[in-house]
């Protein structure tokens, strides 16, 4: 009973708002730290790849952004499920705060994929299974963003967006496997970005970069969710108090 | 018995009402009153189970309606400000299709009788798109003549009816109350309902 109470307290915007405010600097610091370490290892220490030359260093961004774009979609779907099941206000806002960052990650993944493809495959775009799925994932993000933007009532927008996310998350594996299967059928390029024989340093660089991008996403999403909270709860006492307090500080 | 317990309604940013409770027994009619935007229609949508209340409970025969949604809907007849008739279908087809979707059995003869009562004799087989607005409304009201479900929820049923039709509809509602039915309705012009206990609830 006590746990339940705490959970709800945590999920209430009035408690979460200051907590998020305190957490943001920590995540920013972690993102910077991991980023510096990752860049140091990836760009300065790691040796060249004997097959791909220095161009392989793009994977230090490409792979983390691809991971993050998929992971963020899953997290959004998780929040959507919580929101639809328990009707909590916070979960819809979390999903919405994450979406633009997820879309940007998908975009970066495509962008770096294209820049990697040009020297490696001799063309900017290849209908490679991974790139194609990433493109579809970007479409899914854009669809979600367009849907929630089109609905004026925020609660209705959250719920409708939540259903779309759940439908999307069921479909993502189906889409991925169908695209992969289509790709092998048409014998398109199937050069792997990350070789399994990758040197250990490279793996470390990639992991550190992924951690850095992860922390960055959390920090940005928290900052965005704080603005959403103020906006949505503007008629509550805690937002009024918050507004007058920040007024004194500035 | 229909019970509303401590209902709260928030639309968008605004809290329309809170702490609203009432009880409705067999043979009773509840008039909902209040200025425009006070939340009458929102309350009706809560009562039919389409709008979940922010707080509070609605119970039908002692059970929360969100738990026994299908049973509740089997006992409920709702007439909104939209007619819920299809332009492409004839009045007769509309009545029959409406009854079937509501899970009711309705014979063609009964449907024709009902249409005669609302003054649409001879137009049973004309597609509704050829009818006037008033006639379309009457097709919608014809449902009430045949409906035997215990709870009627009516949104502005008297709007845009001529005097004769108002009296006729008041009679139909009276008969429903006399059979032991219940009704909740919103209206701008209170109409005398001859039978049953009439109660009023003011919102906002």
């Amino acid at each position, binding site marked *: 009973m006590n746990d339940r109470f705490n959970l709800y307290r945590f999920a209430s915007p009035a408690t979460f708002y200051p907590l998020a405010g305190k957490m943001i600097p920590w995540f920013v610091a972690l993102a910077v730290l991991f980023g510096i370490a990752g860049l140091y290892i990836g*760009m*300065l*220490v*790691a*040796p*060249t790849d004997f097959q791909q*030359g*220095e*161009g392989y*260093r*793009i994977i230090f*961004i*490409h792979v983390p*952004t691809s991971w993050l774009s998929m992971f963020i979609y899953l997290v959004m779907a998780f929040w959507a499920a919580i929101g639809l099941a328990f009707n909590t206000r916070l979960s819809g806002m979390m999903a919405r705060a994450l979406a*633009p*960052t997820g879309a*940007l990650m998908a*975009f*970066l993944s495509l*962008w*770096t994929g294209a*820049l*990697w493809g*040009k*020297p490696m495959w001799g063309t900017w775009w290849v209908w490679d299974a991974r790139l194609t799925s990433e493109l579809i994932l970007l479409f899914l993000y854009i669809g979600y963003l367009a849907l929630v933007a089109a609905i004026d009532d925020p609660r209705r927008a959250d719920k409708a967006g939540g259903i779309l996310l759940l439908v999307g998350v069921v479909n993502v594996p189906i889409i991925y496997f169908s695209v992969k299967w289509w790709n092998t059928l048409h014998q398109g390029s199937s050069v792997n970005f990350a070789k399994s024989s990758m040197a250990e340093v490279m793996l470390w660089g990639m992991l550190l970069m992924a951690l850095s991008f992860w922390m*960055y996403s959390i*920090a*940005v999403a928290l*900052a*965005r969710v*704080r*603005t959403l909270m*103020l*906006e949505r709860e*503007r008629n509550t006492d805690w*937002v*009024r108090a918050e*507004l*007058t307090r*920040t*007024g004194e500080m500035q | 018995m229909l019970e509303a317990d401590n209902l709260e309604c928030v639309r968008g940013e605004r809290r329309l009402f809170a702490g609203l409770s009432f009880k409705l027994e067999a043979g009773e009619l509840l008039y909902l009153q209040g200025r425009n935007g006070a939340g009458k229609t929102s309350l009706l949508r809560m009562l039919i189970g389409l709008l979940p209340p922010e707080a509070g409970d609605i119970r039908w025969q002692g059970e929360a309606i969100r738990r026994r949604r299908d049973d509740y809907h089997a006992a409920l007849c709702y007439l909104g400000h939209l007619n819920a008739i299809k332009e492409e279908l004839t009045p007769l087809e509309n009545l029959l299709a409406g009854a079937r979707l509501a899970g009711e059995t309705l014979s063609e003869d009964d449907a024709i009788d009902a249409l005669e009562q609302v003054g649409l004799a001879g137009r049973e087989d004309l597609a509704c798109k050829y009818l006037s607005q008033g006639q379309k409304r009457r097709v919608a009201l014809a449902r009430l003549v045949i409906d035997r479900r215990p709870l009627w929820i009516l949104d502005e049923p008297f709007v845009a009816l001529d005097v004769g039709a108002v009296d006729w509809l008041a009679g139909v509602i009276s008969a429903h109350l006399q059979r032991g039915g219940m009704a909740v309705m919103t209206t701008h012009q209170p109409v005398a309902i001859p039978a049953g206990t009439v109660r009023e609830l003011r919102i906002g």
Partner: protein
Amino acid sequence: MIYWNSFADFIAMGGYGFYVWGSFGVTALVMLIEPIVVGRSRKTTIARLKRQLRAESRSKEA
């Protein structure tokens, strides 16, 4: 420990400089702009909400 012999080598990236720095540059740009956009929308939101709050309290006093 450091793999590169000279700074010029590092920039050239073995002939892949355009692609590598194109990737890293755009990513850095995005990760710079996004927080700025978020921060600015936060500021405008707070300013707007404050205006509303002031207008409200004034209309209450009146």
